[in-house]
């Protein structure tokens, strides 16, 4: 019995819990991407750097708060600083819209032009973030780091294996769930939400229904800014703040958004977890789990690993391709919000 428990705990500790936290992080990022796609109809390559920007402002604000001794322990101070990050990011994003995207919207440029324009915005943001805070790692996490550490867990349960749960993991999960429910409700039920969907569906006809396009676009960007800042900050709290990793995040985030069905918020969440768990489970070495489950004589010598971890991205992409081949518009059918 304890063997089974031990096996479960190992599995939870190295697969379930980290996968959940990574999945929730991807999902939050993918939500922002999906929202831009759904309302403004293009793939926003600047989203990773938007997250970096939002997180950066939050980091700066957190330092300022920490400097004057404000704290909401055991929660991280960064949560208090979030509004500052959101406001600054919103301002920045609205400014780019005004200066860049609006022109192409009025021109009725093709989606691919928007994609390339977003690459341009990405370069600029990339530089701006590094100008302000530099390319380095920045730590800004405070508050309780763990809900349970592996050692505590062993002591409490008397099991041979430990289970660690980070506070940031739980926080990310909770926020992801809350945000997606709120977003879903907003888009499906509120007038503004419907106007946004209508606008994305058929812009000209939306005008004929009296929808104010500028307002719709502005609200979309505000939501995107908020989502990006929250996602970026939570990611920074869990891992670390470094501009380059945010850029690296866009590929898995896109994968998540698309596997889930681009344009669908619930799809983004599902996609995030599919990508995260496919990376973790396929490359996990089941040696220790089996070691607990099987009698000693049968315990495996080898790692019992389906594929080396160097192929973990390959694995998630293979899964992605397979999912797309089976369901060409993603798990939850894209483009519907």
């Amino acid at each position: 019995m304890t063997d089974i428990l031990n096996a479960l705990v190992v599995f939870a500790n190295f697969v379930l819990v980290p996968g959940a936290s990574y999945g929730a992080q991807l999902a939050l990022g993918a939500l922002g991407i999906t929202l831009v796609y759904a309302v403004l109809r293009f793939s926003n390559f600047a989203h990773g750097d938007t997250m970096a920007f939002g997180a950066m402002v939050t980091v700066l604000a957190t330092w300022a708060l920490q400097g004057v001794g404000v704290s909401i322990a055991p929660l991280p101070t960064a949560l208090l600083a979030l509004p500052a990050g959101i406001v600054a990011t919103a301002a920045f994003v609205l400014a780019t819209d005004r200066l860049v995207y609006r022109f192409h919207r009025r021109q009725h440029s093709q989606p691919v032009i928007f994609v390339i324009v977003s690459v341009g915005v990405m370069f600029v943001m990339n530089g701006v973030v590094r100008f302000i805070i530099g390319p380095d790692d920045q730590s800004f996490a405070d508050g309780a780091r763990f809900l349970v550490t592996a050692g505590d867990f062993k002591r409490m349960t008397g099991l041979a294996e430990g289970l660690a749960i980070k506070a940031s993991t739980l926080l990310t999960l909770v926020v992801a769930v809350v945000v997606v429910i709120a977003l879903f409700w907003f888009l499906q039920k509120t007038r503004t939400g419907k106007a946004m969907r209508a606008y994305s569906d058929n812009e000209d006809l939306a005008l004929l229904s009296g929808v104010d396009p500028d307002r719709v676009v502005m609200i979309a960007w505000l939501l995107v800014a908020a989502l990006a800042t929250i996602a970026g900050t939570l990611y920074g709290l869990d891992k670390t703040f470094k501009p380059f990793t945010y850029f690296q995040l866009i590929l898995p985030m896109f994968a998540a958004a698309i596997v889930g069905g681009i344009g669908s918020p619930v799809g983004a969440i599902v996609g995030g977890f599919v990508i995260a768990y496919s990376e973790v489970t396929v490359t996990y070495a089941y040696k220790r789990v089996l070691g607990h489950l099987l009698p000693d004589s049968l315990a495996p010598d080898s790692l019992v690993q389906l594929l080396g971890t160097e192929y973990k991205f390959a694995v998630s992409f293979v899964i992605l391709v397979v999912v797309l081949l089976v369901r060409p518009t993603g798990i939850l059918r894209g483009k519907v919000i």
Partner: protein
Amino acid sequence: MAEPFLIGEGMTGGYGGTTILNDCTISVDRGEIAVIVGPNGAGKSTAMKAVFGMLDLTAGSVRLDGRDITRLAPQDRVPEGMAFVPQNANIFAGMTVRENLEMGAYLRRDDISGTMEQVFDLFPILREKQRQNAGELSGGQRQQVAVGRALMTRPTVLMLDEPTAGVSPIVMDELFDRIIEIRRAGIAILMVEQNARQALEIADHGFVLVTGENRYTDTGAALLANPEVRRSFLGG
């Protein structure tokens, strides 16, 4: 004669460089039906767009109830009581039928369930399909959604670009009946039709457009009676 309720006067303009409309005048009064007919590519749809502000005019003006609205953005004409069903892409394909109708009533703050019922009574198939995505409907059904959406606004001016294209005869009759009914409520109706004979029968005024110019302007009955018009534009 007092000025008509809605008039696009001497409209000249087009897309990009080309000029499609040439000093074209279209008007309609409250409680009247005005019908635009003409060959394909004559500029009928363009004239409608111009009246609704979706085209930059190089000359001419659009006036509603005596007020110059030439420079008003399309979305700002909706609160003024104007509603428009374009010829193409006239539904929200990714939204359900019901949501399409709700979008028609986007600016309305009052209870819309009554109007919705009226639309469903007019087009019973839509009641059945209200939870289906409009993009999955048949051609005629989409057309019904499009007209239904415009009716939901409860406009003072209703502009329809070929509302009957692709709808079955029975629905077309219903639609024309309904339009006559709406006229009775004092609403101005401006429409483009290729089913021109039926349309002119119920029209108070008719405009025959050719290459962006007014060729004939008369009452519906007079145009129907004109053999030249019948032969060249109404299919004999």
